[in-house]
């Protein structure tokens, strides 16, 4: 597995694969193949892809340690940046197609009013804001400048992002009583965060210094 992960083609391949959902949505929007309500389709799909990449990113460390796939670490930063990419698209789709940004003069004011008015939007927006410093410090020089321990501490914000993202999704669906998908993402992210807590607790008991 590590050999496969270290193959020079792997990283560009993952990069292209991760871009495919975006390409598909773009093509669908361009050719008007997103159904009766394309705006809703785009907002929903970009949100779902954000959650999927969040799951993948948070699965890297457990997979590395459980299965010894150390080379997965090469992909983590890219996957994390794709979380931000799809989250940003999700927000832009909401801002443009739902709130009329760029189409409607008062759209910014409308968005500013809307964010605190609807709690699930507020939570989603908070998650996006928390992703911002992670994306901005995702290059090597930022790590050096911050120092590895501080950088790691900062990037633990992604755990909060995961919690907020599930809450955002849950709240969006709450009135519709339709929790099947929320439960799936909640369970996956819950396991991935639970695994970390369990390991911390075990490490603390064995008095081994906590690893990132």
């Amino acid at each position, binding site marked *: 597995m590590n050999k496969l992960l270290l193959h020079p083609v792997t990283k560009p391949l993952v990069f292209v694969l991760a871009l495919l959902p975006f390409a598909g949505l773009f093509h669908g*929007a361009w050719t*008007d193949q997103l*159904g*009766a*309500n*394309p*705006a*809703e389709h*785009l907002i929903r799909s970009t949100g779902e892809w954000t959650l999927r990449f969040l799951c993948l990113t948070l699965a890297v460390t457990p997979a590395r340690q459980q299965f010894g796939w150390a080379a997965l670490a090469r992909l983590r930063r890219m996957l994390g940046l794709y979380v931000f990419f799809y989250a940003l698209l999700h927000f832009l789709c909401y801002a*443009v*197609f*739902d*709130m*009329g940004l760029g*189409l*409607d003069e008062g759209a910014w004011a409308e968005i500013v009013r*809307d964010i605190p*008015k*609807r*709690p*699930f939007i507020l939570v989603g927006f908070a998650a996006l804001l928390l992703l911002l410093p992670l994306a901005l410090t995702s290059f090597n020089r930022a790590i050096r400048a911050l120092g590895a321990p501080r950088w790691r501490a900062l990037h633990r914000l992604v755990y909060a992002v995961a919690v907020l993202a599930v809450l955002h999704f849950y709240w*969006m669906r*709450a*009135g*519709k*009583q*339709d929790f099947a998908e929320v439960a799936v993402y909640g369970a996956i992210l819950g396991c991935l965060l639970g695994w970390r807590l369990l390991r911390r607790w075990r490490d603390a008991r064995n008095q081994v210094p906590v690893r990132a």
Partner: protein
Amino acid sequence: MLIQTRNHGYDHTTPSDITPASVYQQRRDLLRLMASGAAGGALAGWAGRDAWAQTPRPGKLAPLPGAKSAVAGAATMEKSTSYEDASSYNNYYEFGTDKSDPARNAHRLKTTPWAVSIEGLVKKPVTFALEDLLKLAPMEERIYRMRCVEGWSMVIPWVGYSLSALVKKVEPLGSAKYVEFVTLADRKTMPFVGSRILDWPYTEGLRMDEALHPLTLLNFGMYGEVLPNQNGAPVRLVVPWKYGFKSAKSLVTIRFTEKEPGTAWNKAAANEYGFYSNVNPDVPHPRWSQATERRIGEDNLFAKKRKTLIFNGYEAQVGQLYAGMDLKKNY
């Protein structure tokens, strides 16, 4: 003349928001009057042009033509949504929660034989076979705007008659203040009945004056044909000034009650779905801002969404039903 103040529950940013609607309506009424009388033939064709031959019959199901309706507000001149969109994009939770689920799953519904029982506080409790219900009053075409609480809207040419025709026939008792609508909940054909999404069967309700309003439609068809299963066949309700979920599909029981009946969505989330659920841009929903809406098939991705109108634009017709009511409280 209705004098409105902020205390009357609905208010407008400018008085001009309301005036054109009533003036427009008077003009339509005048035209109809002229068309039916003195002005005669030529003008009749012109006045009737909006409702006729606007949407071609899709040719998928049995025809069910309706005569042009004389009810005020019954025929908007806006462009009808395509049959394709109106029959493939809708909510019908008994068949699934995704908007493409109903069209995919509703073919299993058996619509014949069908009966609707009239119960409760009524002089003549009776069970109508669908055939008798179809014959109870002449079919009319009503082109209504339909506004979903999710922030999208359509324009649909329905075929049916005013619910009031049925109500008058069965003679409700003086104690009857509300009408409850109970819809089919059949585990065998409806895959989501049995899920805990809603408290089945799906129920809805109207106040008696709302039920008697001529715009409240007992509906059997759309686009000149019988209703597709996913749109509520064989008989449903259409209440054009309320959010779509108030218009219950596939009715099996109509019950007259003294107390306000519980409704399926109100039971599921009372803070989000009130009993009245009148379309109201000033009462935001926690999930969907209600100020604007996207007209399906017409407003493309980069079009500005249109402003939602109070009572879905039917204020001239129904506003007086709510005079003096706080519509923010009675949402």
